[in-house]
């Protein structure tokens, strides 16, 4: 009824077929292997009070297990606290982060750590760092006149 020639049907079937395959892979990765981007649903806090209560009354690296760390980061215009984070090679890091003013970003290029820090919400993410190096943390969400000066260091020794 749509004047679809045979070639077009073949063309569409291949297209739709590869699409489904693609979504299946993505879905399996997401559900079965837990490779989900951050979701942080119920973790809401009052932006001005964040430093008064856990987890953001203690910022920085805290060891919680065998080469496993909790890293609490607070972002603000225009910086991150702490300004430098150091963990050993192979460390599994549980990030807990937020912003106390506007929306900021937290990206460590070369890793999948690519997050948004929205005031009022806690962004949580876990990643294991196997490659040693001196990484850059950049704020990649426009946050004001000093946005391009908002960065920090992430060192894997």
């Amino acid at each position, binding site marked *: *009824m*749509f*004047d*679809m*020639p045979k070639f*077009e049907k073949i*063309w*569409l079937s291949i*297209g*739709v077929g590869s*699409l489904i395959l*693609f*979504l299946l892979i*993505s*879905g399996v*990765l*997401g559900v079965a292997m837990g*490779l*989900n*981007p*951050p*979701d942080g*649903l*119920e*973790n*809401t806090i*009052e*932006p*001005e009070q964040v430093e008064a209560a856990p987890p953001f009354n203690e910022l920085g690296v805290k060891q919680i297990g065998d080469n496993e760390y909790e890293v609490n980061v607070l972002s603000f*215009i225009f910086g991150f606290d702490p300004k430098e984070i150091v963990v050993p090679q192979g460390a599994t890091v549980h990030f807990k982060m937020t912003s106390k*003013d*506007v*929306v900021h*970003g937290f*990206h460590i*290029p*070369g890793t*999948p750590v*690519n*997050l*948004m820090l*929205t*005031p*009022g*919400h806690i*962004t949580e993410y876990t990643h294991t760092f196997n490659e040693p190096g001196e990484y*850059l943390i*950049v*704020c*990649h*969400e*426009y*946050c*004001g*006149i*000093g*946005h*391009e*000066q908002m*960065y920090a260091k992430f060192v894997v020794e």
Partner: protein
Amino acid sequence: MDHQHTGLIEKDAHGNVLTDFEFEKEDRNIMLAFIGFAFVSVFLGAVAGFLQMMQRAGWITLPHWLTYYQLLTFHGVALALVFTTFFIMAFLYSGVTKTLGGSMPKITRTLSWIAFFMMAIGTLIAIFLILTNDATVLYTFYTPMRANGWFYVGLALLIVGSWIISIGIIIAYARWRKKNRGKPSPLFAYMTIATIILWLHASLAVAVSVVVLIIPWAFDLVPRINVSLTRTLFWYFGHALVYFWLLPAYIYWYVNIPQIIGGKIFSNSLPRLTFILLILFSVPVGLHHQLMEPGLHSFFKFLQVILTMAVVVPTLITAFSIIATFELAGRSKGGKGLFGWVKKLPWKDARFFAAFMGMLLFIPGGAGGVINTSYQLNQMVHNTWWVTGHFHLTFASSVVLTFFAISYWLVPVLTKRTFTRTMNRLAILQTILWTVGMILLGGVMHFAGLKGAPRRTAYSTYGEHELGITWMSYNQVIAIGAVILFVAILLMLYIWINLLFVTPKMEKTLEYPIGVVNEKANEPPRILERWSVWIGVSIALSVIAYTIPIYQLIVNQDPGSLPFRSW
């Protein structure tokens, strides 16, 4: 179109087809007002883009009264919001007038002028506040950065104005339907209505965000704002916005180009089906812009990623139909063999060539888009320059080159001037410059983005960090692209000034190209004309995709954010 039936084609000294059809003066003035406003916006917007890139590459330093982020806000507002909306409304108005009887009802004209002034005044307010540095919040105006309240009022006027002209066009269409019961609508008008439905549906969300949430907060009537909610409502609108730009380009490819290349519209149903699918799958997908954000459930993020990917279907149909149309046209002109027809296409006609280069750049652009949306790959590119590269190939190249192609005949049709050989040659040159410039700019932005270069950032080497230095070397190439684009936009302005005021006036008018449907094509299925059904399905899909996320953002509400002026 008449000449096709009589077999007599009248041409001017430059080889252009002439016809007796001309728009009435009242309609012409409306279209010229919208188009003129669009031209000024795209020119100034591109100049801002050029200066921005010069700063970011370290080639110039800006004066203290003008910041990078002011330029960027101007660039986004002028190009993404103003140029597109004005140009699209003029183009839709023209095609609907042409295919539904040649003139618009009086009510449509009145509404269009009201719309024009609302949109123009809104734009001027917004631009003024950007220039005074009171609205340096970028075109996405994410809270809790807070611009001067009138900036949001200006944007609201722009959006509501566009609704008013849209309603004018819908009224004209409804009257036509009443008089022509049982007939399928002409393809151009059909596609226009689809585009308008998409626009009204999507922009309603951002209007709610601006009027209900942001404006009261911006004028200090309420102290705090729900940041995630405003972002979510923005992206409910934001992704459909890109289809709102793309659909008019598709209209040109499907309906006008077949006539320009001497072919026929391949099918009368597939194009309609494409547009319906695009209405359905453009709104319930906005969360794919927020995959990296807290406060939104992963299930709904994933659901919306699936819905986003559904757009592959109408895209493949479009690619197929357009190539088929080209082939049929080339063969009917005697092209033989597997690719002989390619040579028969009018490569030297800018009205075709510019749009064709746009289509070509849509291939890498679209492929990049699939990567953006894919759930995990998004983590590599989110908010990097990859994204900016992506929409300079799709939007600033494919869509904009198509709009340029439209202007080469639409302006002469409206001014009754000639599209001279010289202008055509310059337009071909313009196309080549724009294509090369965008490949350098958009293409290299992709690579810089893969290396992690963040979008929306002024010149910075990040404390001489190794990565910062690498990014800066990419910027040098991107800046060369920006210089080429700057030359191209100057040339574009020169061509437009000529077509508006200079080239010779004619007795007859340049042809308004509307393709004829291939005689073998079937009548379109009735159900495709039942707009209420499609509006219903579209709303239902959005309700499924959005109710729970929005509900969660409201119940899991933190106290909200106070305003900041961080620039």
